[in-house]
């Protein structure tokens, strides 16, 4: 199961190659889903594809290096009560996180979502929501 972790960097910490060091040290596969930095520091949204213990160890290392971490449980929601499977979102999704099943239902695979948010305003009944954290 992919863990999604939000790393918060101070301006000072942002200068050091902490992510690279931790990948090197642990050998754990990590994928940057989203990153944003400015003069005051920034954040990286990370997908860690590893067994629980290994992922936990990587998160600890970030904390030890002075990076604030937060594990994300649900970041995008598809409200199935509101959604009527029109599919307006489908062709806008760059990763295939939103897909059409054989019975023409819309299915959301959260693991694939990169929070680009293109789908959100395209939904005619506002059934897609990204939670801010």
């Amino acid at each position: 199961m992919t863990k999604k972790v939000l790393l918060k960097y101070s301006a000072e910490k942002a200068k050091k190659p902490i992510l690279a060091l931790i990948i090197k040290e642990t050998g754990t596969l990590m994928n940057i889903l989203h990153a944003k930095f400015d003069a005051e520091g920034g954040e990286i949204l990370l997908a860690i594809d590893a067994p629980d213990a290994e992922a936990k160890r990587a998160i600890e290392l970030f904390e030890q290096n002075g990076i604030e971490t937060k594990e994300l449980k649900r970041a995008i929601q598809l409200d199935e009560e509101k959604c009527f499977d029109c599919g307006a979102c489908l062709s806008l999704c760059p990763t295939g996180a939103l897909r059409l099943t054989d019975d023409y239902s819309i299915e959301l695979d959260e693991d694939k979502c990169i929070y680009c948010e293109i789908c959100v305003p395209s939904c005619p009944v506002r059934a897609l929501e990204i939670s801010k954290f």
Partner: protein
Amino acid sequence: MNKSVAAINDRIKRGDAVVVTAEEMVEIVRERGEVEAAKEVDVVATGTFGAMCSSGAWLNFGHADPPIKMQRLWLNDVEAYSGVAAVDAYIGATQLSETRGFEYGGGHVIEDLVRGQEIEVKAIAYGTDCYPRKELETTVTKDDLNQAVLCNPRNAYQRYVAATNSRDETIYTYMGTLLPNYGNVTYSGSGALSPLHNDPNYETIGVGTRIFLGGAQGYIFWEGTQHAPTKAMGTIMTIGDLKEMDARYIRGATIEGYGTSLYVGLGIPIPIINERVAKTTGISDEEIRTNLTDYGVPRRERPILREVTYAELKSGRVEVGGKEIPVSPLSSLKQAREIAGTLKKWIEDKKFFLTQTVEGLSTDQVFQPMRQITAAPVAKDLMTREVVTAKPSDSITSAAKIFSKQNFDHLPIVDEKGKLVGIVTSWDIAVAVGTGKRRLSEILTSKVIVASENEPIDAIARKLETHGISGVPVVSTGGELRGILTSEDISKLIGRRRR
């Protein structure tokens, strides 16, 4: 072999009518042929659930005391048309809320009415001896209304074009969000389940046909506006009791950057009266074609890229220029199927009987463009043709001199062949001072927003507004600079129009 509608209704009453959905009929006709299918099947149930902007509802509020002749009327801040007697009004699906904009419109008011929610009513009037009241505020639910009738001028397009976008920017259309450079394709319509595509010759569909409308039983009462049967773009006018409808099949919607609409669930039962009708109801997604159209061109006649079938569209990928492009259906295929299934069940359960049409619908009506008494101006009518230009190799100093002598802010940069390669503004020159840069090639902006010679001024004005710019170079299809058009040129035109 011929069957009458009355005979089919008798079979429904006896409980031995054979009813299938349009998807099931495709298989039956494919396997057994239309002759056998006509003998075997009595009714084919169709369905669609798409955004139908040309929808609305007639409402009657009853009289207030003292009475008012509502001159203007708002329902949850969405204006309804009340220029029909005193307390009748028509709420249209695409009318926007005056306070919430695109987030709420007439379509949402209609859905809220169906859900039984309270609607805020505000009205103003000029006052007469018989209707002295000038202002009114109240709340109503559908139960407080004498009539609430869904009455849609144009529903259930037989099929519709598929859309894509050639521009290098995302555009927001009634066909949904279209990504740049043919980044996606959108389409609407349920293909093999499409009500009108199952009887494109209007042998069984006509004035008086009873249909599934928004979860209730409604009727077709005329051909729809813009009905174009010869182009496989037939439409119908529909009517039904809003009070009996189900919000599962009547949904207000916001289409990003376009406005509001109403998703309408609609299904037509096709009585299999002969083999011809059996054959048309057997039509498959592979046989239904439509045009993939470039919505990047903001003209009435949009370029057609190629023909696509509904089978391709429903597969989720369409090939454009050697690339596989992802596709969005905009109508719900799942609910289209559900509606056909529900209609089938109603008939099997003897809750729904077929009607004999009172009049046929036109089979040769054409959809004409608007008569315009003045031609809309295009870029080449207004642009300045004598444009001072520079070459990429020219010095920044020479460009500074040009700006100091002339009264303009944009200097187009062209190559030896006259092709536009970039633009330099007086601001770019100011910024370059003291940076040690010498040539225009070092400071020019190569990604220039341009207009084509035949682009309508209205489209260019929108471009200037969206990008916050004050002018655009006008280029030929080959990219050669032909002129420049500024917001000033457009203001002058508007000044002339006002006079």
